[in-house]
């Protein structure tokens, strides 16, 4: 009851806002600039709180863009607030839901978070705004990279629905020590065979302890699985498929890399330190990692970024988080948040965000902006990530239950790579448990 009342009041308020603004503009146009200012000041801009997990320089870039939005949209005032990493952000959102004090909008980056928020009814699916009068045209929507839309699409009442909005997206790429490759007379590896050969050569030359360092995770396995022609889950999300022939091949390959000391296993971000310290010469991670690697590197050697080496097919994995709007937010704040998301994805803004943060631009047309063209001319490496977008797959975070499957798969990978279980058995065991979760 109170929610409905609130919604109605909100709509009325919204109308008043709209009329006020329109009236103000009319007055401003015909009478004096003071008229419009007066109307706006009386109502004041609608504050829209936005929680995010972009620390340090990324957070500053985000805040600056929000300021730009506020300047060009006097009706709203986006208030970005950094609340910690994705895990902390999710914890804070969960607590705020329990306390009934959610923000108006937020990034949702933790595994399966959006699926859970949706299930609990604490967020508003964005489809209604996309279809609404202030929404996006079909062509504008098609301009957004398809993987980003897939990543945000959920089944709501048996209909594919855009629930969240791509916000800060990245993709898995291949990092290499360019200086070292040059000194060894090696080309940038294009296939995994190249990686193995180059790693052996670098190790034999005594340059590194191993080719690659890797902290076991499901994403790299998933990339190799897709490269081998497999899938994580069936198209209708009812069955695990990662234990297929392709999956066994992918995992066996990872195990062999470890056995042959082409790659060693690390913890958390240790591989990043090892790469900087030249204990390894290759690494696989998101395109945004270069921000942190470059910071530690201080120009000691030349960091190269290449598309993920290929196997049978080309494939890579999407990372990053999406924006959500909370159901408890006042309707005008919800509209404000949507207006911000929509603006965020426009070519100029997404290009600016991408150039400054190394996250990916959300639209194809952003690539044509002078901003991005200048960047590519200056630093061709930045093009790399975009090229791999054509064959990038999201992790199935939009599947309820994936939060519980991902750790199972992770354990299977660890067991196989460390030689505790054969890849086939490890994957099969995980798939059996995963299927039970998907059915449940």
């Amino acid at each position, binding site marked *: 009851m109170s929610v409905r009342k609130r919604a109605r009041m909100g709509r009325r308020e919204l109308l008043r806002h709209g009329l006020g603004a329109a009236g103000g503009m009319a007055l401003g146009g015909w009478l004096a600039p003071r008229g419009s200012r007066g109307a706006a000041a009386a109502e004041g801009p609608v504050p829209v709180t936005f929680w995010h997990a972009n620390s340090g320089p990324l957070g500053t870039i985000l805040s600056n863009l929000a300021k730009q939005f506020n300047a060009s949209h006097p009706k709203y005032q986006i208030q970005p607030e950094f609340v910690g990493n994705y895990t902390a952000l999710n914890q804070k959102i969960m607590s705020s839901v329990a306390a009934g004090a959610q923000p108006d909008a937020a990034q949702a980056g933790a595994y399966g978070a959006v699926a859970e928020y949706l299930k609990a009814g604490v967020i508003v699916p964005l489809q209604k705004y996309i279809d609404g009068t202030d929404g996006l045209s079909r062509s504008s929507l098609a301009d957004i990279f398809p993987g980003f839309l897939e990543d945000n699409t959920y089944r709501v009442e048996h209909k594919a629905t855009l629930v969240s909005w791509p916000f800060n997206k990245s993709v898995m790429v291949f990092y290499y020590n360019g200086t070292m490759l040059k000194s060894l007379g090696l080309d940038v590896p294009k296939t995994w065979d190249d990686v193995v050969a180059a790693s052996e050569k670098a190790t034999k030359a005594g340059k590194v302890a191993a080719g690659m360092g890797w*902290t076991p995770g499901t994403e790299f396995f998933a990339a190799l699985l897709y490269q081998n022609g497999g899938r994580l889950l069936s198209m209708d999300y009812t069955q695990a498929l990662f234990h297929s022939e392709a999956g066994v091949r992918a995992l066996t390959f990872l195990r062999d890399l470890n056995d042959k000391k082409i790659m060693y296993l690390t913890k958390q971000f240790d591989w990043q330190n090892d790469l900087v310290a030249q204990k390894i010469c290759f690494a696989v991670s998101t395109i945004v990692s270069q921000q942190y690697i470059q910071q530690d590197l201080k120009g000691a050697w030349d960091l190269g970024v290449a598309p993920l080496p290929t196997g049978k097919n080309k494939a890579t994995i999407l990372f990053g988080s999406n924006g959500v709007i909370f159901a408890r937010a006042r309707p005008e704040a919800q509209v404000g948040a949507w207006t911000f998301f929509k603006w965020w994805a426009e070519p100029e803004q997404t290009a600016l965000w991408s150039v400054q943060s190394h996250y990916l631009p959300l639209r194809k047309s952003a690539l044509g902006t002078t901003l991005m063209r200048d960047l590519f001319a200056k630093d061709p490496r930045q093009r790399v990530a975009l090229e791999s977008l054509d064959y990038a797959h999201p992790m199935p975070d939009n599947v309820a239950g994936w939060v*519980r499957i991902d750790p199972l798969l992770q354990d299977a990978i660890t067991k196989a790579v460390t030689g505790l279980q054969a890849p086939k058995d490890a994957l099969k065991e995980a798939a059996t448990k995963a299927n039970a979760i998907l059915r449940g």
Partner: protein
Amino acid sequence: MALSQAAPAVRLGARRGRGNLAGYLYLAPAGALLLAFHVYPLFYGAYVSLFRWGLTKQAFVGLSNYWGVLHDADFWRSLLVTVYYVIGVVPVEIVLGFLIASLLAQKIRGRAAYRLVYFLPYITSMVAMGLVWSWIFNANFGLLNSLLRLLHLPPQRWLLEPRTILALLHPGGAASATAGPSLALVCVAIVTIWYYTGFHVVVFLAGLTAIPTEVHEAARLDGAEGWRRMRWITLPLVSPTTFFLAVIATIGAFQSFAIVYTLTGGGVSGGAEAGGPLGTTRVATLFIFTVFYNEFRVGYATAAAFVVFAILLGLTGLQMRIGERRVHYLGG
């Protein structure tokens, strides 16, 4: 008490009332905090545990969360890991704490400096500590592995090793939770001991200095020296302290979270790796945390928390009963 009993009944009531009021007023600030942050959450938690509760309340399910927890192999495994951890940590902490305290109770030069050194880990930031120990235990370039290489021993994978110590000594063994603690858990236990021993030392020092010197002197006059005095005077008279520490350390180790979380990689991305490798360091609190925050099963996690609470309550009750018989209170 005897005086007030002699006073007329009415006055007694009034005086007691006024006295009580003042007493309650003094208790109020602490009481309010306890009510707000301990009692209320306890009852609210009990309420939550009776529902299917994802991000929000869904449906009343009675005791089925508890039923689920009691039949959850992962939960029992986390309890087993906890038991390994408690057994590995508590006795060592107490024995080490007592030994070091006994040495520091002697009149040696630089005693204050030693006391400080042993207490230092206890006041160190847990995150900083986690970073330093991670470096020591680093599987590829860590300090410990460098030492092993110097001694021509094979390097170990420490915090990344899910195999049990037995399996490592007899290669070919698999990582099974029932086969004993993993090397990773042993590493976590070592850091825990390193962290908390200083606290035990300080409390034991207080207990040791509380033993009246005349008891020791009397024993010495009777010809008791060295080990006999330790066995028949010091140990019995310090037993209230030992008992207190055993209870505190058991509860503490059972509820250990931050150390395990920091050392096993919590808070990186999804946090899914905390408790790794292969869940061999996933103690009960980490299990609850993971189910709560990563799997969004709030009601279920709360039920698991109550089961752990019940076990801990039973264990402490048992300790109390044993303690009653074994603990000697001076003059009591």
